């Protein structure tokens, strides 16, 4: 028999809010119109707390907690917009920008990029650490799609959507730390992947220009991310 769902009451930015016990701070904040920035999170996919943009302060907890994977608790006092958080979030973005070659002006998703618009939203004006300018390959072996590792921020949305929604698990991550890279199958060229169904979900969910479709004019590659929660819902319903 199902347990009755418990409701927790808490404060976010001094506002009294409530949420189910299985909900995260991020979900409850969004239900109440409170903005918490995210990059790796996408509704319809499992949250993994990778990008650290959604870090929030919780009274009585000394470290910062990622809102996307922290469940609400009774009496919690959450702060989402402190000066410290804003500074850290900008720093996270600066580090992401410096890590690979994010050249907006010539990027295929210039104007339609979540990383770019997040930098604008959070008021990131410059990158204060030196750029690394790594030499990274572009894999255009797939008939329809291209992966450009120069623009990848390792959010792993592609990995999760391929595994959780499409069920193919073509994508994965190899390497550690700064050398991490998303791969198809066992680090084979995408065009030679035997598991890829060419469904294009990974391209749709990619927040940057790392994954894009061939043959469309540059800067007109709009991504359709909203269809994902519907797909997830329908899949759940069939079970």
């Amino acid at each position: 028999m199902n347990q009755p769902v418990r409701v927790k009451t808490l404060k976010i930015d001094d506002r009294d809010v409530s949420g189910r016990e299985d909900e995260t701070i991020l979900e409850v904040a969004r239900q109440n119109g409170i903005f918490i920035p995210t990059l790796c999170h996408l509704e319809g996919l499992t949250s993994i707390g990778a990008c650290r943009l959604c870090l929030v302060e919780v009274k009585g907890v000394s470290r910062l907690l990622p809102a996307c994977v922290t469940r609400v608790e009774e009496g919690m006092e959450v702060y989402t917009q402190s000066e410290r958080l804003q500074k850290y979030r900008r720093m996270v973005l600066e580090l992401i920008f410096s890590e690979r070659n994010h050249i907006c002006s010539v990027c295929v998703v210039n104007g339609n990029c979540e990383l770019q618009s997040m930098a604008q939203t959070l008021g990131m004006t410059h990158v204060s650490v030196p750029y690394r300018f790594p030499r990274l390959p572009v894999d255009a072996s797939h008939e329809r799609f291209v992966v450009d590792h120069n623009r990848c921020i390792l959010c792993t949305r592609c990995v999760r959507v391929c595994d959780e929604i499409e069920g193919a698990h073509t994508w994965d991550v190899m390497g550690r730390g700064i050398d991490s890279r998303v791969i198809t199958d066992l680090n084979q060229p995408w065009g030679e992947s035997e598991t890829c169904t060419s469904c294009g979900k990974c391209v749709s969910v990619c927040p940057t220009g790392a994954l894009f479709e061939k043959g469309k004019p540059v800067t007109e590659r709009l991504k359709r991310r909203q269809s994902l929660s519907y797909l997830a819902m329908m899949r759940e319903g069939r079970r």
Partner: protein
Amino acid sequence: MAQQITIDPITRIEGHAKITIHLDEQGIVRDARLHITQFRGFEKLCEGRRFSEMPALTARICGICPVSHLIASAKACDALLAVRIPETAEKLRRIFNLAQMVQSHALSFFHLSSPDFLLGMDADPAIRNIVGVIQANPQLARDGIRLRQFGQQIIEWLAGKRIHPSWVVPGGVAQPLTAEKREQMLAGIPEAIDITQRALKWFKGILRQFSEEIQTFANFPSLFLGLVTETGALEHYDGVLRVVDSAGNVIADKIDPNDYEQYIGEAVEPWTYLKFPYYKPIGYPEGIYRVGPLARLNLIDRCGTPLADEAWAEFRTLERGAVLSSFHYHYARLVEILYGLERIQQLLNEPDILDTRVQAVAGPNRTEGIGVAEAPRGTLIHHYRIDRDGLITWANLIIATGHNNLAMNRGILQAAKHFVKGDRIEEGMLNRVEAVVRCFDPCLSCSTHAVGQMPLQIQLLSPTGEVLDEVRR
């Protein structure tokens, strides 16, 4: 004691350069050089990128003529796709390219060079600029601004924005033209033609005052190179390459642009980042040739539009054979603006111009592609090689200003010999040497595809290399 004069930075040009003038013991000009001081390396940084990004990538070479790069690059990509693009797309690209020429020529003539014409080469530099023009001849200044705006407006109407639009794509263009935009463009053309004719009349009237400059501003025999149509009319988008000599005789004709490497070589000198293209059958450095508006008007048998044909016929009477004085680049620019406006009007009136099939879709079908078009400053060549997946393995760009490098250097020497005397730099002399460069309307950021910092400096150097006098702007 021998000396050297350096002009650094050169003003009212697009990009960064300096001039050095070398004097001998008697204070007589021995040599003069144009140094392009910026380096960018676009050909290298394109490697590994997908070919379809090339139009947008190479357009970033220049904020003034991104359209020219878009066109040449997209044509090279069409060759990689091995497709024939829809006719409407070709016409729209032509309008786009001509609009770019109108705005760029207007910028060169009115904003950058008209201060010299209106206020004189010896005028105080504090007023010898577009603001001075506004005060002295508000109508001329207004005309120039209006004409440039119209060219830019057409670009925006077609592509959505004026600078770095991404509308030109491999295989065609991204969006068709709407009837509303077409009417807007057509409505603006009569005024733009009036402005151009007014400027042409004014310029012809003042030519007499500049006879000394006409004689000495890069006025020497050279070859001329550029695109013409199969039938020898003015051409900016496609066509075949033609070369004429200083007497106006055609020495090579109907060259397939894909064979450019057989005719054009590139030499390198240690004192500048800009390469020296030369005409291969003659060799370096004798194979000096000029490109751009002057060259195009020297190459053709006719323009192909009524008003421009009249203006062109009059232009060709300036000299017997080819028009050799680079001062007449300015004149040629006005004739080309007139042609551009008339041609845009013709194209807009074509019955299929609103057709919505404007892009041919294909993957890479060839591993090598060459795209050649006429930019405002001359012949622009994009040449790419790709791998099996369509990633660039090699790129070569020959930019209009580069072709004119030999001619600009020789032109500076000629003007310096005539105007520079003694070991002191006088304002009028300095400005005239700069004005030679300005005739060519060089776009140095383009031609070196390089990075750098702006304006011009003239240095006067002794034979031992000691700086005797220096003017910096």
